[in-house]
């Protein structure tokens, strides 16, 4: 417990470093939020700089920003002027989390299943074909898969909508599938590898020698240790999936969080980029923390309290 609490406290200095680096990096990039095709008259540029405090020294802006985010206020977006960054994140994240969460779930269930089957049928035709498909899933980028899926399923067959977002299941199917595909493939390969390793260990041989049926050997004895590498992969993978994917969002026109990050950087939308960076930082740190807890629960060898 004590360990968990101190790890959570460690979040603060990590975030502070993250904020500082991100703040000065985005300011180093040439061009500003108001540079565009049409160059602004100097009077208007001056008004804008005053309004957004861009006329102040950078260090002062930095401390002003720190003071502001202590109150959890990320400020107004430069690009989407009618919305605050808090509002944009609050609207974008649930969408990304839904699609990403479903994709994670699908990838985990399907990936481990494929991996276990492949491991059980090691070096057979089933194994080779499953792993072949998995390799394909990892190597084909989703900007190829997504338009192909839309063309086949939405345009030609007319079964599902071609894109857009209204929280209906029909509009989630294709993005979730596209997003889950490479992760499923990766998990399948990971599960197969570690399952084969576990199946060769002594205690499994003992279990088999006792005359336990193969299915029970797998479920009762081999599954938990075999899933350990998958669990540690799931932490960062989940963080990556639930924070949104730019490619998926652009092709399916989904209002998730991923595009804000990239668009924000391209538009020099300082407040939006900072807001999303901080938000990502918190999510990734939290997920890693959860994975550590899960890991300890599944693997008695690293349980902290018992060592102490």
């Amino acid at each position: 417990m004590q360990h968990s609490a101190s790890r959570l406290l460690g979040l603060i200095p990590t975030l502070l470093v993250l904020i500082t680096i991100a703040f000065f990096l985005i300011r180093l990039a040439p061009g500003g939020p108001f540079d565009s095709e049409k160059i602004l008259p100097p009077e208007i540029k001056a008004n804008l700089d005053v309004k957004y405090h861009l006329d102040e020294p950078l260090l002062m802006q930095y401390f002003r920003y720190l003071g502001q985010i202590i109150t959890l206020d990320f400020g107004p977006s430069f690009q989407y002027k009618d919305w605050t960054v808090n509002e944009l994140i609050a609207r974008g994240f649930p969408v990304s989390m839904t699609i990403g969460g479903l994709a994670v779930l699908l990838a985990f269930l399907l990936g481990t299943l494929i991996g276990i089957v492949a491991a059980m049928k090691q070096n057979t035709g089933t194994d080779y074909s499953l792993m072949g498909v998995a390799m394909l899933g990892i190597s084909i980028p989703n900007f190829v898969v997504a338009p192909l899926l839309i063309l086949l399923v939405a345009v030609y067959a007319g079964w599902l909508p071609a894109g857009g977002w209204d929280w209906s299941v029909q509009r989630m199917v294709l993005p979730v599938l596209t997003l889950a595909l490479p992760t499923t493939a990766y998990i399948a390969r990971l599960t197969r590898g570690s399952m084969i390793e576990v199946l060769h260990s002594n205690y499994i041989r003992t279990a088999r020698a006792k005359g336990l049926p193969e299915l029970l050997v797998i479920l009762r004895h081999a599954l938990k240790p075999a899933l350990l590498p998958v669990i540690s992969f799931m932490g960062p993978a989940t963080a990556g999936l639930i924070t949104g994917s730019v490619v998926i969002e652009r092709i399916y026109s989904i209002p998730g969080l991923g595009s804000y990050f990239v668009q924000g950087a391209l538009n020099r939308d300082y407040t939006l980029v900072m807001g999303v960076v901080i938000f990502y930082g918190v999510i990734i740190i939290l997920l890693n923390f959860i994975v550590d807890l899960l890991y300890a629960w599944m693997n008695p060898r690293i349980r902290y309290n018992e060592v102490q």
Partner: protein
Amino acid sequence: MEPPPRMNTVRLVIVAVTMLMLAQTVWPMSVNRGLGPEPDSLDIHQAQGLSAINLLRDLREGLLSFDAKGELVPGQAESWQVLDGGKRYRFTLRPDARWSNGDPVTAADFIRAWHRAFSPQTASSTVGLLQPVVNATAVMSGKMSADALGIEAPEPGVVEITLTKPAPWFLELLAHPVSYPLHPSSMDDPRHAPVNGPFMLEKWVPRALISLKKNPEYYAANSILIDSVKYFPIEEPAAELLRFRAHELDITETIPSGRYDWLEKNLAAQLRTYPYLGSFWLGINFRRPILGHSASLRRALALAIDREILVRVVLGAGEMPAWSIVPPGISGYRPAQMVERGWSQERREAEAVRLFREVGFQAGFGKHKPLVIELRYNTSQLHRRMAVAVSAMWKQVLGVATELVNEEWKVFVNNRKMGVVTEIFRGGWIADYGDPSSFLDLFTSGSALNTTFYADSEFDQILASADRDSGVVRMERLHKAESVLMQDMPVIPLYYYVSRHLVSTRITGFADNVRDIHLSRYLGSTAESP
């Protein structure tokens, strides 16, 4: 007792016909439109992007508005007088102009909105369009109070605007969102404020959907055929095309590049391309030693480019070869096109070689010591293809070695503005208003928008003198000013833009026009399902 079977059929037919008629009348008519990127703001003084401006034109209305063909028509003002030789305008508001909450639109609503637009605290980026108004710059920079601004309300239903000098194109700016009125309540809350346009905001889900419904208080509400408009912000043109093909959109904002041939073959009835008031060119930095000093060299580079190949093979989306800065389509104006336009490409290239040798002889470059120039553009597949093609043409015809430099958008515009590292760069302009001066003013010496740093007193003088005249004389002078530009060639025109949409065949009232303005109030739809 069963009725005879024939009776049954008759009844069935009657029921079916009645249902069909009901479906025709009762079903709400809706149009689904692609919007392009997410609008930057629905605040009339903050909106800058085209998607936001287009939305605001459906939600609100200025003193003037546009008809289906993009021509100016009376809006909230039913009539106006031009006084003092074009320096003063007197607008009479429509008696039936109303806000969506039923309040009448008054002259005070305009004055209030303009004071907000010019206030330094608002920091509007588009208010510069209204610079011709008396004391505009002084009020904008906070040196004078808003009361000094050249807008007054002598009577509740009359708005008077005074300009520093006649500006014949000024009326069009009164149809631009920056000059719209604001309701006194919730001035700073564009999401909930009452509007005075044909539609009202119903729902706004950022980057997913903006849905509008008919405003019953709008003076011409009875003439509007549809009940609602759904705008879908779709940033990716390829995704927009897929959604159009899946019948989820009736009108797209654009078409993906490189798909023109395919669309012409497969969606010919839906594809709508039309000239647009925009030009694409290569700008030349006049601060550069050789390029900046030799008009012959610039002309040689311009003539060596085969524009036909450029628009047909490289771009292939219906663009038109350009030989002038001002695109065709502005009523009353004849663009000053380069004389070489009528020549064959062989003759142009021969002339290019002749000019190039002449300059090379003096400046010391030629066959053995090739001229090296730099062409800079912002990262985009289309710009890269354009740049590669142009550099290949220069190489082939003149033997010029071109260094291609691509930069991220903000870096590029920043470098172009500074004019230190740029040599030849991607440039272009889309008209703010349908007048040649929207293009020609870019090249006046000292203009913040002049990224070529071209400075010519003759050109400046002709342009200034043009504003003292009106009508045909003014257009003649502007034509003369453009001829000077085409002689000096601060930019090499490549092509004129076109507007490109896919419009479902069930949609009525979509009229192609050079301003590419298509207000939803003129649209209709012939059936509910596509």
